[in-house]
């Protein structure tokens, strides 16, 4: 048994960190977040060159065929850099849904171009009720057409196609369709834009049934948790650095225990989230019986920790933490958006409860 990263996993994580530091430093991230879509074609083609757009997908569709743990590592580094734009929507979310739901022919048609970096895509899930519970989806396709609206759809404006979760199946619509209206929602997180998507007799191609969605959503949920870990890591680093250099009362503020202990808690929360995310990645990869619960454990913990690490980070910066120019609030905004996406801690605690209380399963497989 080995819960450390392998050499190739370390290599991947390390090169991702270097890649994002070079191609998406804070200044570039800030430039993109001020644009309408936070999307940059040049950055996208560099992500593609790295193989990131096909990271977990089979080689027959142009993917790299790496595992879920590798995806977690990449997303952790993307989160650390606060990577703006549609990477999560396109690769993690739409890619995983296509991979889980589609026939080989449909995968060649839709997943392969994602792997090759030729298209952007997203998945429309939530409706006005903003419920992550699949039974609350009310939209249904009828005669190959969709009518209704979806909310909180990430990166819809730059998506070439939109995958729509309906009550009676998973559908795909062309985002250029005249019968489709995409309008922005103004969210806290400026690096990942949200939209309302309205369908009026919009032609929709059926991709498959909703039965395979849970696994795709579990992958997306775990990847989002991994992103949160990266955000926490960066917040911790920035904060510790500040605590070492900022002086008050003639000393670095990091020498005051009230500050030091908060930093220690940030470290504990970050590391514990990371352990939970790595385990979830492994359980997904192995298709372990407890994989869904493991994902909920990771999302539950990282959702709460992402927020508290941010709280502490801002607090330790004093007045500086409250300014626009300090990056900590940008991580904090992303953390809030990610906290609610795919269910917040309360939602996932109930999922865990039904696994450990109602079905009497233990929370995780013991070795």
């Amino acid at each position, binding site marked *: 048994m080995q*819960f450390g990263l392998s050499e190739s996993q370390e290599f991947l994580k390390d090169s991702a960190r270097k890649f994002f530091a070079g191609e998406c430093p804070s200044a570039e991230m800030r430039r993109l977040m001020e644009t309408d879509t936070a999307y940059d074609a040049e950055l996208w083609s560099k992500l593609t060159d790295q193989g990131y757009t096909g990271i977990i997908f089979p080689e027959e569709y142009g993917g790299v065929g790496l595992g879920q743990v590798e995806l977690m590592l990449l997303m952790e580094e993307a989160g650390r850099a606060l990577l703006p734009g549609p990477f999560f929507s396109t690769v993690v979310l739409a890619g995983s849904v296509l991979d889980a739901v589609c026939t080989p022919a449909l995968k060649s048609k839709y997943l392969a171009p994602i792997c090759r970096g030729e298209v952007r895509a997203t998945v429309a899930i939530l409706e006005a009720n903003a419920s992550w519970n699949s039974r609350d989806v009310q939209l249904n396709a009828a005669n190959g057409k969709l009518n209704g609206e979806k909310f909180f759809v990430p990166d819809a404006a730059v998506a070439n196609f939109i995958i729509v979760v309906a009550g009676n199946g998973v559908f795909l619509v062309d985002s250029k369709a005249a019968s489709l209206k995409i309008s922005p929602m103004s969210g806290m997180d400026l690096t990942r834009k949200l939209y309302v998507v309205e369908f009026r007799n919009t032609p929709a191609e059926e991709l498959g049934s909703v039965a395979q969605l849970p696994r795709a959503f579990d992958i997306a949920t775990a990847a989002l948790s991994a992103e949160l870990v990266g955000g926490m890591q960066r917040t911790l680093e920035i904060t510790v650095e500040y605590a070492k250099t900022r002086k008050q009362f003639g000393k670095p503020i990091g020498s005051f225990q009230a500050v030091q202990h908060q930093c220690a808690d940030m470290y504990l929360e970050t590391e514990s989230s990371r352990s939970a995310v790595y385990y979830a990645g492994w359980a997904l990869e192995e298709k372990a019986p407890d994989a869904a619960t493991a994902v909920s454990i990771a999302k539950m913990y990282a959702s709460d920790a992402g927020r508290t690490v941010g709280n502490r980070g801002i607090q330790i910066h004093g007045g500086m933490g409250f300014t626009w120019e300090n990056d900590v609030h940008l991580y904090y905004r992303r953390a809030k958006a990610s906290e609610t996406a795919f269910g917040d801690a309360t939602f996932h605690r109930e999922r865990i409860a039904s696994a450990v209380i109602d079905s009497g399963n233990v929370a995780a497989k013991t070795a």
Partner: protein
Amino acid sequence: MDLNLTAEELTFRDELRAWLVSNVPKDWSDWREKPMEESFPYLRTWQRKLQEGRWAAVSWPKEYGGRSASLMQQAIFWEEMARVEAPPMANSLGLGLIGPTIIAYGTEAQKKRFIPKILSAEEIWCQGFSEPNAGSDLAGLQMEARLDGDHYVVNGQKVWTSYGWVGNWCELVVRTDASLAKHKGLSVLLVDMKSPGVEVRPLRQMTGESEFNEIFFRDVRVPTENILGKVNDGWNVAMSTLMYERGSYGARLHLIFKSYITRLIELSRNIQRNGRPASQDPLIRQKLAQCSAEIEIMRFNQMRAFSRITATGVPGPEGSIQKIFWSELNQRLQQIAQEILGSYGQLLAGDPRAIEEGIWSYAYLRTRGNTIEAGTSEVQRNIIGHFVLGLPRSY
């Protein structure tokens, strides 16, 4: 990353499982709730039996009676022991902390003299570190050891000494040179508790029992050959013991906590709240889920730490998050138990209406000690701040 057991780990597990099936005592539940003084001989016998199968100290090198087990095998060991609800071993400090320190720092003669009897539970060990004026600031300890020919003459007081009441030997940290800086003048002595001048007094804990003691030393003569490690190098020797202390808990706690939460979930099905079983109350479900999840995360943290130690060879200061995590989690767990049990939660052992012989009221009180023993939570946070994050020292 690969959490499947290796072939070697599977062999280890299967051999242990097979041994446990035919050797684990069936009557432990009759003894479990009895006072420690009564059950202690039982625990000694069990440890002796384990060592007959060479299972008492799996982490120890083979040449000293262990199995040179890897950290993962040690985790498997504790998991299997918990699975069959095996009794604990009598000489837990000797096996977990002090034996390994003797193996690391002891002379050949000391190893020969002490190691076999630690394994067989013939000699029980206690850890004489804390003093009334030296707890967190252990290096400030005052117990004096004056050289007199081929003996040290020891004077002073130790406190909070677990197993003091049953200890045959003590790993004692003393000051051998008061003229040196406080970390520099310490040494570790191995002291026979039957030496003239040693007086052990019970200390009653807030739980009502006397798990630990205070020990007075008046002109106690300890042969110089019983010094462990070098003279005035006691700080390093003692730190090595504390590293074992921090490392050794985590692995066995996972299943203990899991057994608590499982029992609590069982209880919650039969306790009514707002006209339905507590297990169906949304707020209680949230709390049980949070706690179950944290118990798993504690295990993930532990496994990651093991892999890191296996790679680097030494436990680092990151181990402090384990200590904080398990001790504070245990307190949260017992608090949830109290919320679920309501008025019954307070009933003590002996009350006919107490839930499960009063283990919950006992555990609630006992867990307050968790954030104090083996280094307080504040001290652990100082360690992370200073040694892991590199923040400037606060003192």
